[in-house]
């Protein structure tokens, strides 16, 4: 006991067997506190599975996961989120038929401890509006506070998603392909947002866009065929032979 580990998330020997198909096998992953850590690799490398495993949306077949030195291998996913590790999803992590403010409020509401109170007026949560609007402003969405998330373009939805995640005041954010489906302009905006977030939080992200990864991340883990191929800063990784063969060689520029 005593010393705080420099790593916020430590996974050891993670494996996931889908009825005979080994999607992830023996992956060790350590995420250093206060860094932006990227997980890259060709399609089917098992990146999203690793995400699902560490957030407990999937139960690992083998291996151990520790978050803040606490073993979370057997916890429910909602419990993991309550401990401060909050994830997003590849496709969409917003509530489409709620307004932007309502989206944020769903997250803020959890800490009020009134989420099971079915006898109270909804208005009792209006005290959260101020904080919600501040978060909305921090991601540049003030003009859309009362717009349904469904009516926003993808880039803006991504911002809603990040603001919602930040509302939980997480220590560790897991972003699953934050740039997928975004146009050039949105990529710039969301990158900036992630950089901003990274100043106060630890971020682990799966991302395909290598220039984004290169610009943002402190550490990169490269996966292929369910295993870790290499790990290090971009400059080191980009020179790695195995990585070039498995990843860059397979058609990526």
């Amino acid at each position, binding site marked *: 006991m005593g010393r705080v580990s420099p790593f916020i998330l430590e996974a050891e020997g993670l494996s996931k067997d889908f009825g005979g198909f080994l999607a992830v096998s023996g992956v060790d992953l350590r995420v250093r506190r206060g860094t932006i850590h990227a997980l890259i690799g060709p399609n089917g490398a098992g990146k999203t599975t690793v995400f699902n495993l560490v957030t407990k*949306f999937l139960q690992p077949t083998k291996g151990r996961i520790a978050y803040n030195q606490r073993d979370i291998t057997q916890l429910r996913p909602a419990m993991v989120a309550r401990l401060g590790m909050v994830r997003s999803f590849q496709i969409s992590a917003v*509530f489409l038929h*709620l307004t932007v403010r309502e989206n944020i409020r*769903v997250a803020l509401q959890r800490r009020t401890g009134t*989420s099971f109170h*079915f006898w109270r007026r*909804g208005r009792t949560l209006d005290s959260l509006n101020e904080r919600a609007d501040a978060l909305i402003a921090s991601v540049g969405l003030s003009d859309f506070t009362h717009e349904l998330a469904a009516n926003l373009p993808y880039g803006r939805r991504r911002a809603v998603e990040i603001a919602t995640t930040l509302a939980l005041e997480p220590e560790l954010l897991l972003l699953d392909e934050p740039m997928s489906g975004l146009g050039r302009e949105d990529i710039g905006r969301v990158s900036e947002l992630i950089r901003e977030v990274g100043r106060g939080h630890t971020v682990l992200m799966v991302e395909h866009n290598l220039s984004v990864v290169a610009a943002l991340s402190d550490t990169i883990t490269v996966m292929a065929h369910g295993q870790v191929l290499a790990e290090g800063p971009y400059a080191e990784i980009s020179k790695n032979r195995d990585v070039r063969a498995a990843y860059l060689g397979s058609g990526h520029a």
Partner: protein
Amino acid sequence: MSAILDLLPPLPALFGQILIGLINGSFYAMLSLGLAVIFGLLNIVNFAHGAQYMLGGLCAYILLKYFGVGYWPALLIAPVVVGAFGVLLERLFLRPLYRLDHLYGMLLTFGVALVMEGLVRNQYGSTGNPYPEPPSLAGAWNLGFMYLPVYRAWVIIASLGVCLATWYVIERTRLGAYLRAATENPKLTRAFGINVPRMVMLTYGGGVALAALAGVMAAPIYQVTAQMGSEIIIVVFAVVVIGGMGSIIGAIVSGFVLGLVEGLTKVFYPEASTTVVFIIMAIVLLVRPAGLFGAATRTTAAGESHATAASGLRLSPPTVRNVTIALIATGVLAPWVVYPVFLMKVLCFALFACAFNLLLGYVGLLSFGHAAFYGGASYITAHAVKMWGFDPLLGILAGVLAAGILGLVFGWLAIRRQGIYFAMITLALAQMVYFSAVQAEFTHNDEGIQAVPRGHLLGLVDLGNALNMYYFVFAVFLLGFWLIHRIIDSPFGGVLKAVRENEPRAISLGYDTDHYKLVAFVLSALLSGMAGALDALVFQLASLTNVHWTMSGHAILMTILGGVGTLAGPIVGALIVAGMENYLATLGAWVTVIDGAIFIVCVMMFRRGIVGEAAVLLRKVRLKRKTEPVLAPSTKGATS
């Protein structure tokens, strides 16, 4: 030693029940096999499967009676005819629904089942139409320890053969390989040049033909009745939940085994013979939620979509207020215009539908078992008031609590599974409650609890008076309606909306969504119980009608007809459904046909329901008014 032997029943009785068990098991296996095949490819639960089984038997009956065509040709003709009907059904009705939530397919086939059962009951009555055994299979073999009727032996062997042949086709042939490929990835299979839509259509037809074949084989054993399908299909659903839908062999094995278990229960503990399958289902859900042969439980990682056609509808506070004021005014004045007993029925139904809508419209859970809460509460209230001399309010409270406890048990079991499984499990559990009500002493079986005293409210107001009773019911209804509105609007309701919109995301924000669903389910059960308790006092009767699955069907019908996820929709739906029941009662089984037809129409082209569609229309009109106030008069001027 002899004590143990005394406990055993005489051997012939034992073997007799084993035989009956195997016969039932044969039909369970064939039907659940067809359901599994259809589910595998179409991803819908074919609720009409029971009705199609009945049609098979009926077809054989008609062939013999009117055309003199006997059993053996019927064994071929009936599946072809009914299968062709299935192909048509798929092409015209099911195909347009594939892009929607799977629950719509279930609702549609439920409507189709109602229409078919109603039509047949109209034509052939609800008593059995006997069908003779084929002469070539008459008689029985003496096995020494028992007589084995030849026809029964044939049914067991033939159905086993059919099941194994189906398994062989699917698992071992090229056609089966295509089928499995299309199940895994329809788009890719299409890219290989296989006509997937046609394959889907023929698979549905094949599954239906299998049901019809079972129906023909069943005809000489059970006789042909309109309700033979709905009686068996609910048990088959339980069999499917137990076996797990993913596996063909699982469907076959669990069908036969459960038939056998049922037969043995009839020997050793006859009271439980109608419920044993449902009890096993509950145990399996606790121990192995995915079913005995099912694949490991799916995680919540994949997004679930829900049947919330109206989720985009938002009501402004003034609209809510206006609706409420109109509701109260109408309710206060109505008994001076309309017969109060009818109005009270509408109110009971409306509260029931609103409680149901809380679950379907705001959480996205489709329960097919709400009759258990409505009917269960009406029994408890009737008993408490009549036998224990409870005050009416206390009596209602007792009923509501009973419904809540049932809701807790149902919800706790059913929430382990999602979507269509959830619907099937609630249906099966409710059927267990129904059979318990048939068996229990205090419910008085077919007679029900009669002459339930309405009593005096707080010892003061005589509820025997129709108007007093009406206003009492109206007050309770308003209380329930207000509660529902409050729940939807509450912090809890906010989380429910999030769960409905995107369950994985709600989990990732730290909400244990299953707990929220369970609380919502219990609340819905409590409020349904409130409606059922009122029903018992209004009609001074608690009967099997209220716990029968048709009552669960009513809740769904009222809600989707009025508008899922709308505040006033269920009330409008209740008015129409109660009105039909009241004023069309002389039409007999036609009411069932009309109910079914409404289901079909609603699912096919009217998914927002009456209130939902009206709201959309109103919004369009308003938008028009806003954008073209200047334009409108000028065009008018131009044309005149």
